[in-house]
């Protein structure tokens, strides 16, 4: 359902040209749980950003179910991203001035969903991640694991086609990291959610269906 065709990404400054990704070709099928591994600087996050339409490739194309959003204007691209993709970041990236409820509600606000529909979905999402009793809490009142659960709830609330998780357990201790990974596995197995996860942890990667390895911007397996 997601296909990357000959993706290349070059970062250009006035003096230096850095090839972050070169000739990446891969497919992620619906319901797959794929992990992306590689040393630091191998292009993992860049790959995820391009896959999530947060960044444009220098060459190549990203296809979602036969549709290429390359030529989309900003409005259409933003709407496409809102419906197709959910993100989980290493640093959680919750808006500190909003409660857990308001953070999870965010994608639905940009979809202009009705208030009753939003409430129903937000409560469902927070219940799935086990935080139904923390809706009114602010991020500063939550533990690291709880913050990441809120981020996961935010990523699934809009029923996106794919969740892109960039080192979701990177800032958590192993115990909590394990819990978060189990949650993602559960979402994949029970809800058939497609997940692409960047990780440094070999143990977590082995729990996924497939591992893509990058080295110096190129796919080695």
């Amino acid at each position, binding site marked *: 359902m997601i296909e990357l065709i000959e993706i290349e990404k070059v970062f250009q400054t006035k003096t230096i040209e850095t090839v972050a990704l070169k000739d990446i070709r891969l497919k992620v099928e619906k319901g797959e749980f794929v992990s992306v591994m590689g040393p630091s600087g191998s292009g993992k996050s860049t790959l995820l950003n391009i896959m999530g339409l*947060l960044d444009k490739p220098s060459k190549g194309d990203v296809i979602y179910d036969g549709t290429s959003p390359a030529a989309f204007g*900003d409005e259409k691209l*933003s709407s496409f991203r809102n419906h197709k993709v959910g*993100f989980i970041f290493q640093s959680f990236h919750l808006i500190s001035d909003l409660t857990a409820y308001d953070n999870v509600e965010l*994608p639905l606000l940009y*979809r*202009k969903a009705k208030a009753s529909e939003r409430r129903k979905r937000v409560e469902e999402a927070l219940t799935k991640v086990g935080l139904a009793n923390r809706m009114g809490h602010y991020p500063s009142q939550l533990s690291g694991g709880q913050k990441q659960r809120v981020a996961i709830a935010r990523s699934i609330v809009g029923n996106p086609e794919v969740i892109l998780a960039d080192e979701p357990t990177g800032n958590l201790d192993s115990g909590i990291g394990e819990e978060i990974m189990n949650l993602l596995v559960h979402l994949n197995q029970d809800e058939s959610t497609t997940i692409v996860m960047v990780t440094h942890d070999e143990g977590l990667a082995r729990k996924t269906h497939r591992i893509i390895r990058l080295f110096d911007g190129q796919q080695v397996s």
Partner: protein
Amino acid sequence: MLKNYIIIFWKVLQRHPFFTFVSLFGISITLMVLIVLSAVFDSTFGGYGPEKENNRLLYVFGGTFSLQGEKNHWTMRGSSSPYFYDQTVRKLKLPEMVSVLSLPQTVICYNEDRKIEAMRKYTDGNFWKVFDFEFLDGSPYGESEVERSDRVAVIDQKTSLDYFGTEHSVGQTIQVEGKVYRVCGVVEETSISRTFPFGNIFVPWTTSGQDLKAKVCHGTYLAVIKARSPGDRQAIQAEYQGLVGRFPFPDPYQFNTITSYADTYLEIFTRNLLDQAGENSRIGLFIVLITILVLLFMSFPAMNLVNINITRILERASEIGIRRSYGASIRTLLGQFLFENILITLIGGTIGFCLALLAVHLINRSAIFPYYILEVNVMVVLYALALSILFGVLSGIIPAYRMARMNIVNALKS
């Protein structure tokens, strides 16, 4: 969505109280000044007080009389004589009616041991039909009293209270520079900014003791013309110019040329300001100049607010990245930031409006501007609201646009 924006807006305000204070201070002071100036403008040029229907009125502030000769050239500018108006204004056919009135003159009135200073105005009977004075007591004198030179007077509320201690003084007598007048009416005060209807004591011009038929050009009189409808004013102005062109100079060796105009208040002002003679009073130019001045005046605090907004928005780069990741378009983010900015300028505008009310109250009470009455009315409130929103848009659009277009990945990293 608005609830989300309002929550964020409130939290951002609380994050840096000093920045918030600086923003609100700049906005409120700027808007206070603009609102007070709007009140001055409205008080001077708006349809207000006795000139509610000023869209039907034209004013003649005398003229410029000149002698253009081979050996001698001179010019005198100012108010004119009843003779001049008899030959011009009173011969107009198009207006509904016309009135001739004097400039207000300071007089001393004595009431037993009390000395009261007031501004007296001589008028004809039509004066009360041309203007819409609000009578608190009694009624105006008419043309018959004027013809009989009856010593009757209409006084304003302030004079009635100062002289008699009550605003119900009809029937009582008032001594004005040795002459005794019977009060027939009491009217609401008018601001001195309204030169034509302004006065404290109004009496028939036939009681002045002057020779109103004297064939002279200069005098202390003005004229007001009331059109049947606002659309007639241009035709009346043209008719007036025709009569001025045919004015029979009493002594062509004294004066042989005249320029005089029947103008709206604003036209009188722009003509004097821009020293403009001729058909075109340059109102358009005046409006352009005023608009530029207002925008320049607003631009300084707007630039200050732009800088503060840029700093604030830089802090929110991460939030911008998150919102963009989850589907906020550039236009949506732009709308959010503009909304927040307009909200803070509305708050500042409200504070500025309250400060303006206080300033207007102090000006009205001040001895520095005697007889000057300012009012903050609905039009001024609407001006203030429009200015607040314009201010919010001006100061918010640049930083909002810059930040909305920020690269998503870089925003998330910051």
